[in-house]
């Protein structure tokens, strides 16, 4: 049922964007941003429940919650950066989009470094 709602919202928004784009391109861009946000808000609740299930499984399996937390953060950063970069690319600003993506890669690297260090420590312990 939800998928029909999502497709309908997407189609209506696209048609309206094309209508508005001829006269007011900036408003068309804002309309596409709003449509993107609305579509994602619809499924955000489901993503939240999936993440809770994964968290429960991780706790049961005994995986450190630090690692799962970092992975979730990285997914969140990646999503927001991709959201912004795609909007900038739609508006024709490829340079700004690549800057956003570059900055978000650095942020993800910063988050990933502790895990890499932990893995290396574990490996070094194995080597006699």
């Amino acid at each position, binding site marked *: 049922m939800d998928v029909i*709602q999502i497709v309908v*919202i997407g189609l*209506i*928004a696209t048609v*309206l964007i094309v*209508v*508005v784009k001829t*006269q*007011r391109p*900036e*408003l*068309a861009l*804002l*309309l596409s*941003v*709003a*449509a993107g*946000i*609305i579509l*994602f*808000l*619809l499924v*955000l609740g489901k*993503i*939240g429940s999936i*993440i809770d299930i994964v968290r429960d499984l991780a706790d049961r399996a005994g995986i450190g919650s630090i690692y799962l*937390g970092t992975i*979730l*953060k990285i*997914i*969140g*950063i990646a*999503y*927001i950066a991709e959201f912004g970069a795609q909007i900038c690319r739609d508006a024709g600003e490829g340079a700004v989009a690549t800057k956003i993506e570059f900055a978000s890669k650095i942020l993800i690297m910063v988050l990933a470094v502790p895990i890499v260090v932990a893995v290396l420590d574990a490996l070094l312990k194995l080597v006699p």
Partner: protein
Amino acid sequence: MGSSIDLIFKIAGVGILVAVLNSILKTAGKEEQGHIVTLAGLVIVFMWVIELLAKLFDQVKTVFRLF
């Protein structure tokens, strides 16, 4: 989630209204007012979109426990 689709119609409505007003003002010879109307429409739509963006980022923060 009917409220979400309303926002899309509102923004499109503002866009079309601004376009029509501009053409009317152009024929009436008041080109400057046309630009002001465009600016006003843009500010209104910006307020809505920024409010929506704030809502999105808050929910993403809670879901992904970002901060």
